[in-house]
């Protein structure tokens, strides 16, 4: 007799743990591959999964085997032309063949690299590993947007699915004890009387009393029996209530200089940086908004498309963007409700007397409100006044203000890592 079992609905992910173990073990390799991928990827697929390849020799599991050499006799199938005694000249290094059982599986793969795919989630995990936004997350009760169901004790009402069996049985037991206690006491007394009566000498025994007692006892038993085992009001239910859940939300301000001095390549670098920051914030917050502000001599809030791709020329007044950011913050993103992040990219050009205005706006209005403000200067040249002013801002807010210089696309990811791992050390 055979048993046929449908197991298709059983868990499919039995190997997940083992897979995680594998990734964990080869973390170093994967991180390296992820770092390389960050530099070579186009912006739009920054957050896709990635093919990782690891040299086979690194993941090899060694066992004792025979090496080449010595005297090997091997039986092979499919002879066509050979007869006994034929001599065949050796062909180079073709020593392996399939003769030895242990070698077969290795040579079967025929690849030098062990290649596999990691998912987007895993990719991002590796990408942002070790980076943190230290102690910067404010949480806020955001109205009726999200709830969490929590247990809140026991209730007398509920759906059958929430029935608490133990509590119900306990209540039923208590009720039965309470309702039958006096009757059982009377039974005990009657039984005592009965025993007394029955222990009397047969001549003195009054059968009538015995019958009477017996019928009384019986009646009491019947009444006890009528007390229901489980009554409606015994039923107890687990009470679940919905609790508003604090939700963290963040807004990210992207500020970019689009003046004539910023070319497409520079903007591209800025975009990569913004994107990394966005992906990073998204992992820490349940809800993230982005505000794009572009500026030359005047600033404007735009959508993403326009932010990155339309060009304008003109001079540069950085403070215009900061002023706009300040206004938007006041109007739409009160710091009491939002985690505010600022990211600014520029090539460092600015009207000279504007830089001090920037300094003032940052120190007085923006920095006290934001969680973090990062400034990247994308230029191979020397710093100008803006950099110096910003350096003094950093001196005032060392934990919340960061600035780095980017020269090349290759720098973006390392600079990004540096900006945020610094915080861990601090």
């Amino acid at each position, binding site marked *: 007799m055979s048993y046929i*079992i449908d197991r298709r609905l*059983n868990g499919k992910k039995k190997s997940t743990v083992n897979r995680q173990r594998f990734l964990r073990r080869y973390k170093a390799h994967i991180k390296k591959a992820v770092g390389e991928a960050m530099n070579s990827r186009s912006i739009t697929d920054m957050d896709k999964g990635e093919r990782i390849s690891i040299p086979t020799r690194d993941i090899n599991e060694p066992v004792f085997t025979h090496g080449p050499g010595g005297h090997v006799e091997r*039986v*092979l*199938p499919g002879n066509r032309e050979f007869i006994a005694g034929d001599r065949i000249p050796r062909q180079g290094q073709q020593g392996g063949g399939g003769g030895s059982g242990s070698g077969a599986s290795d040579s079967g793969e025929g690849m030098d690299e062990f290649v596999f795919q990691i998912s987007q989630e895993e990719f991002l995990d590796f990408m942002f590993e070790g980076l943190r936004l230290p102690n910067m997350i404010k949480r806020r009760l955001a109205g009726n947007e999200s709830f969490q169901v929590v247990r809140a004790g026991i209730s007398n009402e509920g759906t059958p699915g929430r029935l608490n069996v133990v509590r119900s049985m306990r209540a039923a037991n208590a009720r039965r004890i309470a309702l039958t206690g006096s009757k059982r006491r009377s039974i005990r007394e009657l039984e005592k009387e009965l025993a007394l009566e029955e222990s009397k000498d047969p001549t003195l025994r009054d059968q009538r009393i015995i019958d009477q007692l017996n019928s009384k006892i019986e009646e009491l038993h019947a009444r006890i029996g009528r007390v229901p085992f489980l009554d409606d009001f015994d039923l107890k239910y687990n009470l679940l209530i919905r609790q508003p859940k604090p939700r963290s939300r963040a807004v990210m301000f992207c500020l970019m200089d689009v003046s004539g001095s910023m070319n497409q390549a520079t903007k591209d670098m800025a975009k990569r940086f913004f994107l990394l920051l966005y992906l990073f914030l998204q992992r820490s917050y349940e809800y993230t908004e982005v505000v794009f502000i572009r500026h030359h001599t005047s600033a404007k809030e735009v959508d993403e498309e326009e932010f990155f791709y339309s060009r304008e020329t003109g001079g540069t007044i950085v403070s215009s963007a900061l002023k706009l950011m300040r206004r938007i913050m006041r109007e739409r993103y009160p710091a009491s409700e939002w985690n505010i992040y600022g990211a600014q990219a520029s090539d460092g050009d600015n009207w000279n007397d504007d830089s001090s205005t920037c300094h003032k706006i940052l120190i007085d209005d923006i920095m006290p409100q934001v969680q973090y403000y990062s400034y990247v200067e994308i230029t191979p040249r020397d710093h100008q006044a803006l950099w110096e002013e910003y350096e003094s801002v950093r001196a005032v807010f060392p934990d919340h203000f960061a600035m780095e210089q980017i020269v090349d696309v290759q720098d973006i990811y390392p600079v990004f890592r540096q900006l945020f791992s610094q915080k861990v050390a601090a």
Partner: protein
Amino acid sequence: MLDTFTTSEPTERRPISTSSEWTFELIQEYDREISALAEEFGLDTYPNQIEVICSEQMMDAYSSVGMPVGYNHWSFGKQFISVENNYQRGLMGLAYEIVINSNPCIAYLMEENTMTMQALVIAHASYGHNSFFKGNYLFRSWTDASSIIDYLIFAKNYIARCEERHGVDEVEAILDSCHALMNYGVDRYKRPYPISAIEEERRQKEREEYRQRQLNDLWRTIPNLSGAEEEKEQQRFPEEPQENILYFVEKHAPLLENWQRELVRIVRKLAQYFYPQRQTQVMNEGWATFWHYTLLSELYKRGRVTEGFMMEFLQSHTSVIYQPPFDSPYYNGINPYTLGFSIFTDLRRICENPTEEDRQWFPDIAGSNWKETLQFAMRDFKDESFILQFLSPKVMRDMKLFCISDDDRENEIVVNAIHDEDGYRQLRANLAGQYNLGNREPNIQVFSVDTRGDRSMTLHHTQHRRRPLGKDTGEVLRHLHRLWGFDVHLHSLHGDEITASHHCPELGRDRLEGEEESMMVPKPI
């Protein structure tokens, strides 16, 4: 092969099914029919448990050597990732079936397969492999089918507990090292006790104490005052070289913690469980293939399956037993399915229609009852002895086998036997030797341990036809070093002469003097 079917005149066709879709009712029906036939043919099996799974679950099963439960280790993850990758890129199809040597015998059917394939798998796994597991002497005496699942659960839980207590890394390191030596964790000749989870747990405590006592004895450092002669007698430990390296480590490694010894033991036990499978691949697959072929052909003869069923079946059957010639790009060693199937099929032929040649080669079996003869061949042999006994000249001719001799002292490779009158015997002996695990794996044994000195362990590799050790040797020694805790030396011997030595850690400056006394064999320069 088709002629078998065309000659039979089907009396009346009452096929079980005509569509290629399977249902649970149909699987049941096929199983019932096949089971009845198997009984007619005298197959003795464990009860069957047939489980239908999906391809993803098949990949899971693949990467855990088919076991329904297994402890966690990165190497299974690696296996899984590579299976998943190859499957998703279409580089490989999944096996149609996995069958586990347990009681009841568990076989997996994949949901994606057609009815024909399901019937094929049932015949192959649930009756072919199953009866082999129950009948073959190696499985009968070396593994305990009824307790393997329980033991696996015990192992999984134990290892999980160790991970909690000592950390994943610690556990992983030990398991890595054990896996490297897994093939050297089996008793080849001594019959082990059947494994049992309950027994294991009960005795764990007992074992801990006992082991500690033994260890203390062995590694006692206070000098023994009873005299110099005794000292001399004890000089070599172990007295006999030990082939089961993991067992030796478990019992005698000086520094292992008790839980680490238990891990060594678990890996060792599993290695022992798989040992018969490694020794009977040709027979096992050949037997299962022979029976799925025989059983399904019989179903056809009795009109229980359609022509379409038979065509589909034959197509996958022939691809299973296809043997690419040695110079084909697909050649990857001798296909065990082909070899085993050919031998069993020919054995039946020899019994039923013996030729003059057969009478000369197999006087005892030519013309005998084929069912009994096949049962005998299945029960009492392993690959090596099976080939040596039953490989017939006809099979050698059909497979066009030939033997080459590759000696690194010669400039040319010599063909020393082909499938002709002069070559049969040598060919057969050589092929059988190829399946001798002893020849396939280097023969490495624990030779001595310096119990009074630096506690170093010395292994000897006895060369087989001067074959040297492979390139991983140093790596494996590092693993052994991790388990042993002290220096490990490995000498490769040709006769009595050491031709190569490996050391872990790499030999330092001041180690040479201390060593030579304990080793009895001259050191190479």
